[in-house]
C-alpha cells in the first residue's frame, strides 16, 4: 500500500507537463480547427522520449512504470485531450499492433464484439489522416482493415483527425493470443481513462478559477453553497477517476488486466459528470467557444465512444458477476 511515485517517475510526469503546457495548451483551438496536429508537434513529442514509454519491451532502458505513464498521459490531456489521443496513436499504437502480430503502420484501434458481423462504414473514427484500422474482437480475431477515409466534422476530438471509414479490404488477418488481446484491450481503455481524467481535471481547474472570479448577488460564485457543492462533487469524481487509473496501471504492470475496464467505465461516467458540470458552472460563457469547457465536454463524450464504448466494456466488466 504505497501511493508515491519515485523521483524518476515524477520527472517523467513533469516532462509531460512541460510539453503539455508549452506545446499543446496554447494551440488547442488551432489544432481543433485544423483537424490535425502539425508534424512539428509530433516530432517534438518524439524528441521528448515520452512516447517511447508505452512500450516496455521496446525500450528496456527506460523502465518507467505504468503508473507514471498513465499520469503522464493524464498530464498531456489536461492541456488537450484530443491532442493526447493523437499522440497516443502515433507513439503507442504501433507497438501495440506489433504485440498483436500486425506489421506496418496502424492508425486506429477498434474493439468489437464480433469482427465477422461488425458494421461498416465506421462513421466517426479519429485516424489522424491514416487509413489502416486495426480491429480486434472478443474472440481474439484480428484484422487490419485498409479503409477509405472521408474527413468528417465531428462532435469532438477534431485534433485527432476524425473521419468516416469505409472498408476497402482486410490486408492482414489472424488470431491474437488471448493474453496479447487482453493486454491490447486493457491498454487502450487505460490510456483512454487517463485522457478522460486529464480532461476532467482541467475542467475542474478551469471552473474552480471561474467561480472565484465571477460575482453574483454581491459575492463570488464560489461562496454560494449550491455552486461550492458542485465543485466538491466534481473534485470527488476526479479523485475517484485518478485512483482507478492508478490502480489499473499498477495491476497492468504485472500483466494483470482486470482493473483497466473498470477504470475506463469509471472515467467515462465521471468525465461526463465533471465536464458537463464545468459548462454549467460557467453558465452562458461556458456554452461559448470563448472558454475551453464546451470543447472538453464534447471531447469527453466523443472519446467514450472509442474502443467499443461503454457497452462492450460493460460486457467485459459484468462477465462472471452471475
Amino acid at each position: 500500500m504505497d501511493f508515491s511515485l519515485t523521483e524518476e517517475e515524477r520527472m517523467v510526469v513533469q516532462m509531460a507537463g512541460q510539453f503539455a503546457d508549452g506545446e499543446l495548451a496554447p494551440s488547442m483551438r488551432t489544432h481543433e480547427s485544423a483537424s490535425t496536429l502539425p508534424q512539428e508537434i509530433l516530432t517534438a513529442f518524439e524528441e521528448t522520449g515520452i512516447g517511447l514509454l508505452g512500450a516496455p519491451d521496446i525500450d528496456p532502458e527506460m523502465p518507467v512504470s505504468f503508473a507514471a505513464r498513465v499520469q503522464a498521459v493524464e498530464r498531456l490531456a489536461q492541456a488537450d485531450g484530443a491532442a493526447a489521443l493523437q499522440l497516443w496513436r502515433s507513439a503507442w499504437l504501433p507497438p501495440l499492433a506489433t504485440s498483436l502480430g500486425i506489421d506496418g503502420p496502424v492508425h486506429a484501434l477498434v474493439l468489437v464484439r464480433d469482427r465477422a458481423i461488425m458494421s461498416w462504414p465506421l462513421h466517426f473514427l479519429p485516424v489522424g489522416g491514416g487509413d489502416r484500422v486495426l480491429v480486434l474482437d472478443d474472440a481474439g480475431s484480428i484484422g487490419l482493415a485498409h479503409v477509405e477515409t472521408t474527413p468528417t466534422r465531428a462532435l469532438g476530438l477534431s485534433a485527432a483527425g476524425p473521419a468516416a471509414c469505409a472498408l476497402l479490404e482486410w490486408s492482414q488477418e489472424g488470431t491474437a493470443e488471448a493474453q496479447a488481446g487482453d493486454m491490447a484491450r486493457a491498454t487502450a481503455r487505460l490510456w483512454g481513462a487517463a485522457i478522460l481524467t486529464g480532461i476532467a481535471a482541467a475542467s475542474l481547474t478551469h471552473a474552480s478559477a471561474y467561480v472565484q472570479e465571477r460575482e453574483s448577488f454581491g459575492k463570488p460564485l464560489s461562496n454560494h453553497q449550491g455552486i461550492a457543492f458542485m465543485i466538491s462533487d466534481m473534485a470527488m469524481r476526479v479523485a475517484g477517476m485518478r485512483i482507478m487509473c492508478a490502480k489499473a496501471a499498477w495491476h497492468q504492470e504485472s500483466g494483470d488486466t482486470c482493473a483497466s475496464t473498470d477504470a475506463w467505465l469509471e472515467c467515462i461516467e465521471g468525465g461526463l459528470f465533471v465536464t458537463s458540470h464545468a459548462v454549467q458552472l460557467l453558465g452562458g460563457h461556458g456554452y461559448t467557444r470563448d472558454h475551453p469547457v464546451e470543447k472538453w465536454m464534447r471531447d469527453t463524450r466523443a472519446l467514450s465512444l472509442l474502443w467499443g464504448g461503454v457497452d462492450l466494456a460493460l460486457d467485459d466488466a459484468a462477465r462472471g458477476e452471475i
Partner: protein
Amino acid sequence: MDFSMPKSFDSLRQMIHFLGRERLRPLGLEADAMGHALPPDHPFFSEVLEMGLTGGFAGKMDKPRADDDGRARKTVRRAVVMAEEAAYWDRGMATSLPGPGLGGAPIMMMGTPDQKERFLHPFKEKDRPRWAGFGMTEPSAGSDVARIRTRLRFEGDEIVVNGAKCFISNGARADFITVWGTENPALGRAGHRAVIVPRDTPGFSVVGVEHKMGLNASETATLSFEECRVPLSNLLTPRDQTREGFKGAMKTLNMTRPIVAGMAVGIGRAAYDEASRFAKEHFTGPSAWRSSRVADRLARIRRKLDLARMLAWKSAWEADHKEPNQLSAAIAKATAAPLALEAASLGIEILGLAGGASDHLIEKLYRDVKALDIVEGTGQIQRVIIARKLIGFSDERTGNQGESHG
C-alpha cells in the same frame, strides 16, 4: 505505487474475519432484534479483551509514527483495513468493541504523558472492558460545531463543565468522555477546548440512549454535565493556545474519516456479497431473463466499492506519512458512504420481496449504512471542507469557513 494489501495485515485481518463470522454478525443480529446494544457486562466484551482487540483499532496511535528505519508506520492504513473487515460483519458491533476508540484519539494526539498514563493506560488492563466517548455534538449544534455551548469555567485548579452532548457512541458505558466545550462562546473557535470528564464525576449523568433506525448494537447516548468539576490537568489543550482545541478535533477527524470510509466499504461489500449470492442462486433457468441487467448493476457497484476503498487507503497512507490529508479524507468519506448505501439499496432491489423481510441481512445493512453519511461530519460538511480547500468557499453570513466537523 503499490495497491496491494501489506502481508503484515494478514493475521489481524484473519482474526477479525473469524471473530466477525462467529461473533460480530450473530451478536449484531441479536442486538438488532432486541433493539438495543449488548449490556457492558456481556461476556463477549471480556472475550475480545482477551483476544487483544480494541474498538476503533486506534490502540497504536500513541506510539511514534516512524519505525526505527525511518519508514512511516501503517497505523491508519491498518485501521482502515480492519475497520472494513469488522464492518463487513457488523458495523454496530465493531463500534461497540471495548477500547479508547474515537474518545481516546484526541488524548493520543494531544495528550500529555500524564494524561496518557491516567486515561489510556487502563485500556491495557484486562480486568474488565473499558470504553471512552467523544463528546462534541450537542442537541443544538451538530454540523455547526462553532455553536457548541457546553461551558468550561476555570476556577483555580479546576474546570467546571456545564452542558449537554448527544449522539455519543458508547457514551453510557464510557469510563470518560472527551468533552469539547468553550470558555466563552463569543470567542468562536478560539474558545474551544477539550477536557476529559470521568464518568464518576458528580454532575455527570446519562440522559438516555437513542432508539435508532439501525446500528442497534452500538449504544448512542445523550449525556448531561451539571457543574462537573475536573482537575485542570484534565484539560487537553492549553488555555493560552487559541484554536489549538479546534485544530485538535479536526486532526482527529482527518485520521478517523478514512476509517469511516473503510467501514462504509465494509457494509457495502457485505451487501454486494448478499446480492451476488442471491443472483447466482436464483437468476438461472426461467429467471435468467434478469441476469444481464443484474450483472451490469453488480459490476458497477463492485467497481464503485473498489474506488471508495482506494480513496480511503490513499487518505490513510497520507495520514501515516504525516502529509496533509484533510481534503482526501473528506473526499474518501463523502464518496464511500453514499456508494455503500447504493450497494445496500441495490442489494434489496435484487432480492426483491425477499429483501424487504427482516430475516434477511440485507434489510439490516440498508438501515445500518445510512448512518455513515452522517457520523463524523455529514456528506454536506465534507463538501464544505472540499470546497473550502479548492475554491476558498466561505459563508459570509456566518463567517463559517467550513472547518466544521460532525
